[in-house]
């Protein structure tokens, strides 16, 4: 198997000389927002719009806790505002990070590294959210029941067991199968990139 022979055949291969219709290219560029990379950037920008609205809406939904709950419940609900602000800033930072990826100016290794970084951030963020959000919502649920029904006596062992079981199922089924496999893939790609750049001294 000789790469130089393939090179000669590659150079003379006429089948790559295909004509493309202008109408097809025009249709493609009319769909420019549907590109995979543009979609990713759009999702991050949408998060900038959605996060403030959902954080404030959540506080309104928790009105009963604010009105009838104890100081812990009130603080727990209001903590959603700085959490929302933190998440908003994180999305804002990610948007800036993605905007800096310029495929026309950066080298292949630079783009590869940036994309791998983005995927790593996304996965770590999602795994953290998968652990912290159920925890936050679990405590919120306790405050909600306590403020509305005074059920802190019933809302104890049985509910905790069911809630923790569901949270574990959520964690292992969704997070493990979906995201840990991606981490292994990213780590493999990162190793390949590092090996590739190894002799570049």
């Amino acid at each position, binding site marked *: 198997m000789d790469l130089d022979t393939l090179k000669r055949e590659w150079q003379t291969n006429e089948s*790559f000389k295909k004509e493309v219709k202008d109408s097809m290219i025009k249709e493609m560029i009319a*769909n420019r927002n549907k590109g995979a990379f543009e979609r990713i950037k759009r999702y991050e920008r949408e998060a900038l719009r959605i996060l403030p609205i959902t954080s404030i809406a959540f506080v309104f939904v928790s009105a009963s806790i604010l009105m009838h709950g104890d100081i812990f419940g009130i603080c727990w609900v209001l903590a959603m505002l700085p959490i929302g602000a933190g998440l908003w800033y994180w999305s804002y930072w990610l948007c800036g990070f993605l905007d800096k990826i310029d*495929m*026309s100016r950066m080298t*292949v*290794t630079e783009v590869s590294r940036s994309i791998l970084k983005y995927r790593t951030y996304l996965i770590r963020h999602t795994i953290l959210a998968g652990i912290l959000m159920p925890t936050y919502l679990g405590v919120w649920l306790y405050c909600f029941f306590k403020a509305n029904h005074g059920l802190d006596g019933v809302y104890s062992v049985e509910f905790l067991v069911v809630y923790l079981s569901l949270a574990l199922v959520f964690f292992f089924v969704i997070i493990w199968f979906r995201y840990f496999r991606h981490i292994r893939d990213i780590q493999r790609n990162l190793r*390949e990139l590092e090996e590739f750049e190894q002799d570049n001294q």
Partner: protein
Amino acid sequence: MEKDFLDMIRQHNGIIYKVASFYADKENVLDDLYQEVVLNLWKSFPNFRKESTYSTWIYRIALNTCISFFRKSSRKPMYVELSPDLKVPSEDNSLYVNELYALINQLNKLERAIIFLYLEDRPYKEIADIMGITSTNVSTKINRIKEKLKKMSNN
């Protein structure tokens, strides 16, 4: 600007198609990759300052696009279907060439990029610029990949 862009695509369509087919592992991914490259070219076209030739600029964007492209398993339907003519030309190749393609497909994406540019007979300096490594490293890498392909074919 659109007219200039269309002229450029028509002139260099072979490069885009070659890169996309080099990285496509299934027929329908070729359509995705081709369109993704065209979209990225269109996005960058207004900022092209002629610091390099069109072909170098296209190689860079096309390779960056194909290497960084990742589809979700539940992919959305294709928005523009390529003409039936623009498909991987495997029927035209000899068995030898197809076997070598199969081996090249087993290389990682970065090695494939170097091999692609080597097959395109690009100067080592240009390959180094596009890949972000030194010219000496390009030469070393190509020799290593040749050895790797030889070992893979013997196995």
